[in-house]
Structures are given as C-alpha cells and as structure tokens.
C-alpha cells in the first residue's frame, strides 16, 4: 500500500494532478487529505479540475534548474510556449494539441492510459471519419465486453465490426 506523501500513514486518497506539465499521482492519508481538500475548491462544479501551483512545484525545485529543450516550442496560433504550459497547466488554444503533439502524448497517456478518442463526434465530421469512429467505438465496446465476460454481446459487436469493415474495406485502418 502507498504511503501518504506528507506523513507516513497509509494513503487513502489518490488524485491525479498536472504539475509542470506532468501528470502526478498524489497519495494522501485521511488526515492530510482533509487539509488538502480545504485548499481546493470544494463542492463546486469544477472541483475535479486539478489545483495548479503557479510557479512550479516546490518539491521539484531541484530539477527546475536544468533547462528543458522542449520549453522553447511555441504554438504559431496563440504564441504560448511549452514552458508556459508547463508552469500554468493550461494550454493556450486548440492548435496546441497539434503544435505540442509529441510533448503532450506521454502526458495524455499517463493521465488517460489511452491516446485515441472513441467517444462522441461532432455532426460536421465527414462520413468516412464517422464510420471510422463507429469502428473505434465498437472495438472499445468489444474490449470491455470481453473484459466483463459478456460473450454474447462480444459476439454481436464482432459481427457489427465485420459488417462495417466490409462496407469500407479501405478506410477502416486509416486512423
């Protein structure tokens, strides 16, 4: 069992936060968790947004000194640098996901354990892409059906996937 980050009692509360552009798991015992929760916005619609420490994480002060070559990367659309993102924890514009893609990928994977969207898609996304999403979504459903040992559902999903793939044999692997 993990120990509390602030004292040595067993940790019972686990939160993922973004600090300096890195996902960080925070493990706290019950007592320290109560103190911690006092400092984050409580009982509000946004309480799940990570509390971000401006100016960087004091714990990481030692490693702060070495310059990071990624830091000078700049988004051509909004002008934010990767360093600014690292210190503020918020991106500047939607294009940052393109401009900083390589740098963001490991962060996104450590937060979500996945790197490909499979959920809802806006209506304006063209037909071919929509079919690809349907396939991604069905594959995700198939994966969880198998994990949950729902084999009848899994068989049905597999048939649906095969049917869709037959309809669009050349696009199905394009993503």
């Amino acid at each position, binding site marked *: *069992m993990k120990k509390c980050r602030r004292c040595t009692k*067993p940790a*019972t*509360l*686990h*939160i*993922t936060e*973004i600090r300096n552009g890195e*996902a960080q798991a925070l493990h706290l015992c*019950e007592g320290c968790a109560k*103190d911690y*929760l*006092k400092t*984050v*916005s*409580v*009982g*509000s*619609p*946004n*309480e*799940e*947004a*990570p509390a971000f420490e401006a100016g960087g994480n004091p714990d990481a002060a030692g490693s702060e000194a070495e310059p990071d070559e990624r830091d000078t990367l700049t988004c051509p*659309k*909004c002008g*934010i640098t990767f360093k600014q993102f690292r210190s*503020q*924890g*918020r*991106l*500047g*514009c*939607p294009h940052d*996901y393109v401009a900083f893609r390589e740098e*963001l990928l490991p*962060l*996104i994977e450590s*937060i*979500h*354990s*996945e*790197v*490909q*969207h*499979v*959920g*809802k*898609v*806006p*209506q*304006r*996304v063209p037909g071919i*892409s929509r079919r*690809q999403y349907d396939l991604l*979504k069905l594959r*995700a*459903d198939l994966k*969880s059906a198998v994990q949950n040992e729902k084999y009848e559902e899994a068989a049905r999903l597999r048939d649906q996937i095969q049917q869709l793939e037959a309809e669009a044999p050349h696009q199905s692997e394009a*993503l």
Partner: protein
Amino acid sequence: MDLDALTHTSGEWLRGSGPDSDIVISSRIRLARNLAEFPFPPRTDDAVRAEIETLLRTHVQAIESAGELTYFNVNSLLPIDRQLLVERQLISREHAETHGSRSVSIGPRETISLMINEEDHLRIQVLRSGLALDDCWNDISRIDDDLDQRVSFAFSEEFGYLTACPTNVGTGMRVSVMLHLPALVLTKEIQKVFQALHKINLAVRGLYGEGSQAMGDFYQISNQQTLGKTEQQIIQTVKEVVPNIIAYERRVRRALVKENRQRLHDQVARAFGILQNAQTITSEETMHLLSSVRMGINLGLVAGIEMPTVNELFIHTQPAHLQKLRHETLESSERNVARAAYLRQRLSKNEPQN
C-alpha cells in the same frame, strides 16, 4: 428567477426523493467544449473574452433542449451573489473568482447550468437528485447536439474534444455521484472504499461547504479518465460501483444499529438537540451534526423532520445564503449567531416525538 428568490428555494437535486436518495444525494455530468477558432479562456484578452461570451450566449439562448434559461452576467455580480451560485453548485469556484466577461445560464429547477468562459469556453452541467446518470446523459447530450448544430467545437480525430487542460480532453466529460456515507466514515471503513475506487481509476473528492469536517460525510465519486472510452463506458464504470458502495454503507449502518442502538440513538438525538437549541454555531459543526441527523432519519431514529429540509439546510446555512437571508453582510462570528437562529427557526416547528 432572481438571486434573492433563490435563497428561499432549493434546486431539484436537493429534493431528496430520487432513487437511493437516502445515500445518493445527486448525480452530475458535465461536458467541456471549446470554440475551434478562439484561444482558450486563460489565454484570451478582455475584448476576445467578451466576443466569445456574446457569441456563445446567443447560441445557448437559442436552443430549445435546455428549456427556459435564466441568464446571469457573473462578471457584474456582487461577490456574495457569485458565492451564492457556488454554494448552490451552479457555478464553480474558479468561475466565481476569475476575471473578465463570463456568464452562467441556469435552467428550470436548477438542473441545468451553462457556464461561458470558465476554464473552457463552455461548461455544460446537468445535475439531478438521486442516482440518475442516464437522465443526466440524455439531457446533456441533447443540449450538446443542439449547440453542435450552431457552432464549430474544437475537435481532433485523435484526441476528441479539445480542452484547456489535458485532463479533460477526449469526451470532455466528468461524471460524478455525490454520496452521503456517515456510517463508513464513523467506522473508518471508508478507507477501503477509497482504495477500491483508486484501483478502477475513479477519484474521490469532497464535498460541500467550507472547512474540513464541514465535509459532512459527503463524497463525490467521479471518473478521472476522459479519453479512450466512450461516454457510455465512463457512465457505466461509475454506475456499476455506486450500488456496491450503497450496499456497504447500508450494511455498516445496520451493524451499528445492531451493536449499539442506544448509543447511536443518543448521538443522533444530541445532534438534533444542539441544532434546535444552539445560540451560536459554526458551519463545520452544523454540517457534522446535520450529517448525524440525516443518517438518523434514514434509520428511523429521528422523527419530525423531513429529508428535503435537512438537505436544504446543508446549503442554506452556508455563508452567502445566510447573509442573503439576512440582507446584510456578516462577520464570521455574527454568521455563527445568525446560523444558530436560522436553524432554531427551521427546526422548532416540529418537535421530535420520542
């Protein structure tokens, strides 16, 4: 709806009659959406912020799926009115505290709120009493569809809906269920719940109110991962775990009653007695005692007070609500006196029959 009227009413989510509402207070889903062609709010100047606000407001007010909306210009509200909206869970603390052009539009019975220029351009929230995630999803997805017809949301084929913070990217969806777990807290069994939830990547967060034990034994269970799963899968993960926690809480409550009914009854009755008679009381103590009373009602140990009243008191005894009720600004010590007076008044009519 105006803000003064709000102080005398309460939202649908406090009515305390939804499914499993003895333990599940409320279900909530929120979606984060951004306009493709603008920088995210943290990086916009005042002029652009105002432009985004005007544009999105026009579309928000034009859709039918959200019902009749009441609009509040958050930027021009007094701090106490912003705080009131935070206490009612209609806006986030961040939305109350940032600067510049921003707003919230609130639907009938406070089940829907649309925040413009929070951390993302648009945050849609649907909040319902009891365990009602499917209803929340149906409502919120329809609102999202309607807006999607009108504006171009920032979206990438790889990362889904793009958000200011990468923790929200993908579905942009946070699903949460607020639970009242006094017996698990009392017996410290709650730690086992935390550990089990951590294993399936669900976050446990507080709560209500100011301060710590002001937590009032309320916990919010929510998804942490928003990318790589469908909305239905995310909802399913939360939906599957909640009945287990409910069953656990009920089991521990039954055990507590069985082991020492008298002691539990005494604790609950004393809590009720203090709330009915105190001359000065902090928010923290109020939350703690209300939590006891709430459990007491569910176990049949307290009579003469209804669940919606207790639910409402958790909100109405918070600082902004108290000050709005009194129509004056009060210091902390004055609030404690006003809070006690308000509690005495609300709880005096029906003496408990023991």
